[in-house]
């Protein structure tokens, strides 16, 4: 299809309808929608798979919020689904609670906010905004999605293992995750977890290869790097982080598998469990944590950077203003990228880390606050003296900034090793990371979906439902996570806190939080409804550039074919933020400067002719 679209541009323009028909016959359903190599289709596949995983991951959180907020609730009616994970009284068993939080974390961090966010928008926007026909390798891109799919299938299968899904926390710290006798979920469920994550890593790496290569190699004429929209900058650095950090998790996973099945002692030492002293000697569970967090911390930037890029773009387009401090934004993304590799041990301040090493990590960690602060200030000033259109996308972008502020500020508490002694593994941490990389990244995703839905499906999402969705979600986000900061000493990952005098005074607050969480989950279903409704029935897009944006994706037809532009790829003549200059509201990137004389086109050597 790509070949046809590319090598016969003229016929494509003249006979678009015919062309379309023809492809339908040529390709069939499977190669068009299932094993497609079109980056736009793959983006949609990532998005829809991500949405499905988000529903499942959210449903898991509803279950454990019920346990936390309404510990007496009788869930016997859910017996057909939950089966033996309920006790006689219909309460969730502690082992199941652990499996729930583990799977909730894994699914949302990896499947939803990594694959669903980066996979969707990197795929959709990199070729479209840079002026490329497709990714550098459509085939590898397709593989990336199908590895993700396979990884999801394996993870889903782990729910049906007799000993249950993995339940060692999403971080899978050994020895708990290495010894089946210490934890039910550490049986076959954990093997599946590791397998699934290994497949997922392959998917991420294949995707990342494509993203970076496409950005570096396949930009259209005139698209110098400082003319790239901030979305692209964000996706580029995200992919670089992913390529360099995910292999460490793979190494950790392989070593963990060996410890589990082959009797090695990489992470195990001097363990007495199940009435038996194990032979393992010389291993270090802390080593696993180093390997894990060498990925794990960059991972949060893999999640948040694309959201930042999307938000920068959406804020600028809807304020009808350039993003403030374009270069400062790029340099801060760069600084965050570099620093993200130097802060991993701040998750390990209370593991007996060498105090001097700890203090180095404190300094690097708090250093990250500076580029983050710059970004926040720049976003705020982007609004200043703008003319702000409150589309749902814009609301979510503003919401993102607000949430990122709270979450970022609480990060300053946690990055300070001394304070971390108080806060480590308490609800303060839960509140912090849910706000800064959970809900905020979701807001970035929503902003992206509302903004680029017209490009994906040629229809709009319903605006009123979007407003309702936004207001319920942001209010809920604060009502859920803000009070959690006050559960300051409460250890996390407890199915109930009533064993402790110091911790059992938050019953009412927990019920309240659970109630809000359930409402907010329902609001997300509203979005899901809106999404699928609008794909088929939404208001149709009638103009090429509905948001009045400058970037190249809006120069494609409303329903772009594989190859994106029916004719030649537009050339770029300016940076992407020419809003309000020369007395014009905006000037698209492909509009030449006044007085521009195009160079004479070099004689194009047609490969087909060369070969004959």
């Amino acid at each position: 299809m790509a070949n046809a679209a590319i090598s016969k541009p003229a016929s494509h323009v003249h006979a678009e309808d015919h062309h379309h028909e023809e492809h339908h016959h040529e390709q069939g359903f499977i190669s068009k929608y299932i094993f497609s190599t079109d980056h736009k289709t793959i983006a949609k596949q990532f998005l829809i798979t991500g949405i499905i995983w988000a529903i499942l991951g959210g449903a898991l959180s509803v279950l454990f919020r019920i346990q936390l907020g309404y510990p007496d609730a009788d869930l016997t009616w859910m017996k057909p689904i939950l089966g033996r994970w309920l006790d006689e009284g219909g309460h969730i068993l502690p082992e199941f609670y652990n499996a729930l939080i583990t799977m909730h974390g894994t699914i949302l961090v990896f499947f939803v906010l990594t694959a669903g966010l980066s996979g969707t928008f990197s795929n959709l926007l990199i070729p479209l905004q840079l002026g490329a026909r497709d990714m550098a390798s459509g085939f590898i891109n397709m593989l990336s999605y199908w590895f993700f799919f396979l990884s999801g299938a394996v993870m889903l299968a782990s729910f049906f293992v007799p000993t249950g899904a993995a339940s060692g926390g999403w971080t899978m710290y050994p020895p708990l995750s290495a010894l089946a006798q210490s934890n039910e979920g550490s049986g076959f469920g954990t093997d599946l977890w590791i397998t699934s994550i290994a497949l997922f890593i392959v998917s991420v790496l294949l995707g990342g290869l494509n993203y970076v290569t496409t950005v570096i190699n396949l930009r259209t004429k005139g698209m110098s790097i400082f003319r790239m929209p901030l979305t692209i900058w964000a996706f580029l650095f995200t992919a670089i982080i992913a390529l360099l950090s995910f292999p460490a998790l793979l190494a950790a996973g392989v070593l963990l598998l060996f410890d589990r099945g082959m009797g090695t002692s990489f992470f195990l030492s001097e363990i007495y469990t199940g009435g038996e002293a194990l032979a393992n000697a010389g291993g270090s569970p802390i080593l696993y944590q180093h390997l894990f967090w060498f990925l794990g911390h960059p991972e949060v930037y893999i999640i948040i950077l694309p959201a930042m890029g999307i938000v920068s773009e959406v804020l600028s387009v809807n304020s009808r203003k350039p993003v403030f401090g374009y270069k400062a934004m790029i340099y801060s993304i760069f600084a965050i990228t570099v620093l993200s590799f130097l802060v991993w041990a701040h998750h390990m301040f209370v593991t007996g880390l060498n105090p001097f090493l700890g203090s180095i990590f404190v300094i690097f960690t708090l250093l990250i606050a500076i580029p983050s602060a710059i970004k926040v200030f720049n976003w705020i000033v982007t609004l200043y003296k703008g003319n702000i259109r409150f589309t749902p996308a814009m609301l979510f972008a503003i919401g993102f900034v607000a949430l990122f502020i709270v979450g970022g500020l609480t990060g300053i508490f946690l990055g300070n090793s001394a304070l971390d002694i108080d806060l480590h593994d308490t609800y303060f941490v839960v509140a912090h990371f849910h706000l800064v990389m959970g809900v905020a990244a979701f807001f970035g995703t929503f902003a992206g979906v509302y903004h680029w839905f017209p490009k994906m499906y040629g229809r709009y999402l319903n605006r009123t439902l979007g407003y309702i969705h936004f207001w319920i979600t942001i209010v809920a986000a604060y009502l859920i996570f803000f009070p959690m900061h006050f559960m300051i000493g409460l250890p996390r990952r407890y199915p109930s806190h009533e064993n402790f005098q110091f911790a059992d005074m938050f019953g009412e607050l927990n019920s309240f939080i659970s109630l809000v969480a359930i409402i907010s989950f329902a609001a997300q279903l509203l979005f899901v409804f809106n999404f699928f409704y609008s794909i088929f029935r939404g208001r149709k897009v009638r103009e090429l550039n509905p948001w009045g944006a400058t970037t190249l994706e809006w120069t494609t037809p409303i329903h772009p074919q594989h190859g994106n532009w029916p004719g030649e790829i537009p050339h770029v003549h300016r940076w992407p933020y020419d809003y309000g200059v020369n007395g014009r509201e905006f000037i698209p990137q492909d509009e030449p400067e006044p007085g521009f004389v195009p160079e004479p086109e070099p004689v194009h050597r047609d490969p087909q002719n060369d070969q004959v």
Partner: protein
Amino acid sequence: MTPSDHIALPQQLRKTVHPHRFMMWLSMASIVMLFAGFTSAYIVKHADTNVWESVELPSLFWVSTTLILASSISIFFAVRAFHRNNVKAYRNLLALTFVLGFGFLLSQWMAWQEMLVISQLGIGDKVAADFLYVISGAHFLHAAGGVVAMGFLFFLALRHYRTPEDALMLNLHPEKVPGIELVATYWHFVDALWLYLFIFFIANT
């Protein structure tokens, strides 16, 4: 690869590095990180555990090293033959490289047997040996990938590239990187990686 991989480059960028080649480099960076992870784990463990016992490297590792170095040289000449449209030499050198690569894999396999049987080092006995198994095993998988790719190329060479004209066409194709170039780059990388690992093992035992 599929036909849709045949992509149109923006015209002004044709002289820069080809995307597929660039992707190969990127994936090598990623693989380097994987082995950096393994070897830094090795160093950390070596440094802070009190029960570390060094193990002797299997002598067959020297054979493997020789084989993979030789295969690197032969694939270098295979690429040269390819560029000179010398189809026959290309095919022979490719076959030689394939055999050498396969020999490397075999030699690695036997080196493990040597450790298991002669040195009596089961998996799980000594941390140093376990690392040796895991790291050389991970490298083995990467090398195996290269050998499979070479086999595939050889198959293609037998089927499609019989005459100098075939080769000429491939060489002149402006939008495609010849598979052999990618495989050669990868194979040199796998070779260098093994050298690094081998020297690393020697330095740490």
